[in-house]
C-alpha cells in the first residue's frame, strides 16, 4: 500500500544508544492528524524528536514519501517537514513576522533574502493563523497563545508535508487551545498534510485527531482511532487512573469517589444530580444514587462518584425490582437528598421513593444549599 505518506517500521527510540521505546509501527496518509498521548515522561517527546530527525534513532526506519529519513539530507527534510517545539526560541529584536519568515529558509537564496513570492507566502501564513495584528510586534513581547500561533505560521510557510508539534497546547488557555487545534484541523483538510503532535488534554486529543498513539512503558500500548482508544478501560490503564475516573462519553474526568459506608441517598435525574454528586465528592461524603435511567446524564457521573447506583433501563419505566433495591439502600441512610427533578411517567417510582423517605422521617437537606 503506497498511499501512506509517513511510516515507521520497527522503530526504536531513546537516548545515547539506549532504547526507551521499541517496535513503533505506524502508517499515516495525508490529511490525517495523529496524536500521541500518555503519562508524563512516557517518551512522547522522544518519539517526536526521533521522527523529526533531531535525535538519532536506535533501530528501525522512518519513511517519508517512501524515502528513508536517514537517506534524506537536512535540506531535503526541511522542505518536507516543519516542527513546532515546546520551548520558546530565544530570539532578540525580531518581530513576529521576522520569526514567521524564517520558515522560508529552505527556499531563499544564498543570502536568505525574501522574494516577493516569499513575502506573499509569509503574509498568507500569518493570515491563516489570525496573527495579522501582532505581525509587527516584537516576538519576545507576545503572550503564549500568540507565540504558538506565530510558530505555527512559521511552520506553515515552510510548506511542509508533515508538521510535528510537541505539546502545542501547553501554557495556552482554553480559547487558544481550541483555536490552535481548529487551525490544525483546517490545515490537514485544505492543504492535505500530515500532522503529528503530542497532547496532554485527552478530551481535545479525542476530538481533534484521526489516529491516537498511546505511549506507555517501553512500547506503544495502543494505536487506533479515537473511537477505539477512548474507552474507560484503555484510558484508565494508560494513565494508571486507579483513583480518578475517566468518562468516555464526556471525554472528561471526575475526582475519585468518596470511600466509606454511605449515609446519604440522592434522588436525581435529567442532569439535576451532577452538581450535588460533585459537591458531595468535595466534602468526601459517600452516597448512593437512584433510580437513574442508563441514558440519563446523571447516570454517567453517578457511576464515577456514587458508592452504588440503582439504574433503570433506558426508555422504560422503573421496575418494581429496581424500586425495591433503591428503597433498601435508602433505608440504610439517615439523609435523603432530593434534587428537585420533575417526576414524569418513566421515573414515577422515584416520587414514591421520596414520599417513603418523608414517611420514614429521614433528614431531607435542601438540594439548593448543597449546590446543584
Amino acid at each position: 500500500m503506497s498511499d501512506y505518506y509517513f511510516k515507521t517500521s520497527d522503530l526504536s527510540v531513546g537516548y545515547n544508544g539506549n532504547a526507551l521505546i521499541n517496535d513503533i509501527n505506524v502508517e499515516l496518509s495525508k490529511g490525517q492528524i495523529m496524536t500521541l498521548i500518555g503519562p508524563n515522561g512516557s517518551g512522547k517527546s522522544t518519539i517526536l524528536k526521533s521522527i523529526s530527525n533531531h535525535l538519532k534513532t536506535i533501530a528501525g526506519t522512518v519513511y517519508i514519501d517512501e524515502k528513508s529519513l536517514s537517506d534524506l539530507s537536512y535540506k531535503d527534510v526541511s522542505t518536507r517537514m516543519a516542527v513546532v517545539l515546546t520551548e520558546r526560541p530565544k530570539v532578540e529584536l525580531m518581530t513576529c513576522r521576522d520569526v514567521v519568515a524564517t520558515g522560508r529558509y529552505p527556499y531563499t537564496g544564498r543570502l536568505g533574502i525574501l522574494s516577493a513570492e516569499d513575502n506573499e507566502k509569509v503574509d498568507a501564513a500569518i493570515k491563516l493563523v489570525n496573527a495579522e495584528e501582532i505581525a509587527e510586534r516584537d516576538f519576545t513581547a507576545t503572550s503564549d497563545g500568540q507565540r504558538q500561533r506565530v510558530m505555527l505560521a512559521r511552520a506553515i510557510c515552510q510548506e511542509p508535508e508533515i508538521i510535528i508539534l510537541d505539546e502545542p497546547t501547553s501554557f495556552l488557555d482554553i480559547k487558544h487551545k481550541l483555536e490552535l487545534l481548529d487551525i490544525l484541523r483546517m490545515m490537514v483538510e485544505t492543504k492535505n498534510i500530515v500532522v503529528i503532535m503530542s497532547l496532554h488534554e485527552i478530551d481535545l486529543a479525542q476530538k481533534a485527531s484521526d489516529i491516537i498513539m498511546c505511549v506507555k512503558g517501553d512500547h506503544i500500548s495502543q494505536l487506533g482511532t479515537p473511537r477505539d482508544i477512548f474507552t474507560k478501560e484503555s484510558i484508565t490503564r494508560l494513565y494508571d487512573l486507579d483513583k480518578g475516573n475517566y468518562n468516555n462519553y464526556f471525554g472528561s474526568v471526575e475526582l475519585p469517589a468518596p470511600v466509606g459506608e454511605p449515609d446519604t441517598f440522592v434522588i436525581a435525574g435529567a442532569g439535576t444530580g451532577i452538581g450535588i454528586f460533585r459537591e458531595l465528592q468535595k466534602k468526601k461524603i459517600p452516597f448512593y444514587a437512584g433510580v437513574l435511567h442508563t441514558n440519563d446524564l446523571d447516570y454517567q457521573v453517578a457511576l464515577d462518584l456514587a458508592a452504588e447506583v440503582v439504574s433503570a433501563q433506558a426508555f422504560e419505566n422503573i421496575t418494581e425490582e429496581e424500586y425495591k433495591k433503591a428503597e433498601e439502600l435508602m433505608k440504610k441512610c439517615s439523609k435523603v437528598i432530593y434534587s428537585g427533578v420533575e417526576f414524569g411517567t418513566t421515573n414515577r417510582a422515584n416520587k414514591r421513593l421520596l414520599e417513603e423517605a418523608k414517611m420514614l422521617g429521614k433528614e431531607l437537606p435542601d438540594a439548593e444549599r448543597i449546590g446543584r
Partner: protein
Amino acid sequence: MKDFDSRRAGRYTIVFVVLAIAFLTIIVLNITIGSVDISVRDIIKILFMDADGSTQYGIIWKIRMPRVFMAAILGGALSLSGFLLQTFFANPIAGPYILGISSGAKLFVSFTMIVITQLWGHANSAEMIIAAFVGSLASIGFVLLVSRKVPSMSMLLVAGIMIGYICTAITDFVITFAADSDIVNLHNWSKGSFSGMAWSNVTIAFFVVMITSVIVFCLSKPIGAFQMGEAYAQSMGVNVAVFKVVLILLSSVLSACVTAFAGPISFVGIAVPHLIKLFLKTSKPIVVIPAVFLGGAVFCTGCDLIARTVFAPTELSISTVTSVFGAPIVIWMIIKRQKK
C-alpha cells in the same frame, strides 16, 4: 507592511551613514592629533603631493597611519568575533575576552614568542597568529567542555573568566622568567596596545581579517537560522554539527588575529554588537554583520585616540579605555535583561 519595511530600511541607512561618518572623522582625528599636531591641509599635502621625508611625513606614514588602520581592522574583527560567540552560545554576554579565549591566545603567543626568540631570534607575525589561534581553540575547547557539564549560562561565563585568570597567571609567570630584552616588548603587548604597528603587520591582519569577515558575511543565512536555536536551525536544513565547528573556527581566527597583534582587548566583543543591534533594532545577520564590523572599527579607533592623547605623553593601555566604556554597557545590558 510596506510602511514598516521602508521605515526599517531607512533606519539601516541612517545607522550605516552615521557609522561611516564617525569612522572617517575618527580616522582623520587620529592622524592629526598627537604629540605633534598636524593640520588636515598638511596631511593632504604629505599624502598626495610631496613625500619629502620630513618628520611629519614619518609620523604620519610610519606611526599614525598603520596604527589607526590596525585599530580599525582589529576592532572590527574583535566585534565580529564577539557576535559569532554570542550566536553560538545564545548568550549576549559571551565574548572572546570574557570567555577566556583572548587570554588563552595570549598565553600561547607569549610562550611562542619567548621560545622562538631564544631559538631563532625573531618571531614573525604568521607564527604569532598561528600560536594565538591554537591558544584560542585550546581555551574555547575547555569552555565547551565545561558547557557540556553545566547547562547554566552564567556558570559558563564564570568558567570562562576563571580560564582567563589561569592563563593570565601563567603568562605573567612566563614573562617573569623571560630573557630581559623580550620583557619590555611582551609586557606592553600583554596589556593590549595598538602601538608600534608596522605596515607589514597591517597587511597580514588586513587579509586574514577581511577574508574571514567575508566568509562570515556569506554565512549570514545559516547564522540567522542558528539564532532560532539548534533544533529549529536543523529543521530549516542547516547541518548544525558542521556549522557549529565552522562558527567556532571563524570566531577563533578573528580573535586570534587581534590577540596576536594587539594583545587581549576587553569588552569590545560584547559592547559593540549589543549597541549595534540596539541602533539597528534588528538582529538580522545580513545587516548586523557589516554594521558590527564598522562599529567595532569606530569603537577601537576612538578608544585608541583616547588612550594615546588624554594623558599624553603617557599612553594608556587600550583595554583600560575599552573597559571604561565597555563594562558599563555590559552591566546595563545585564540589568535590562533581568527586567525582562
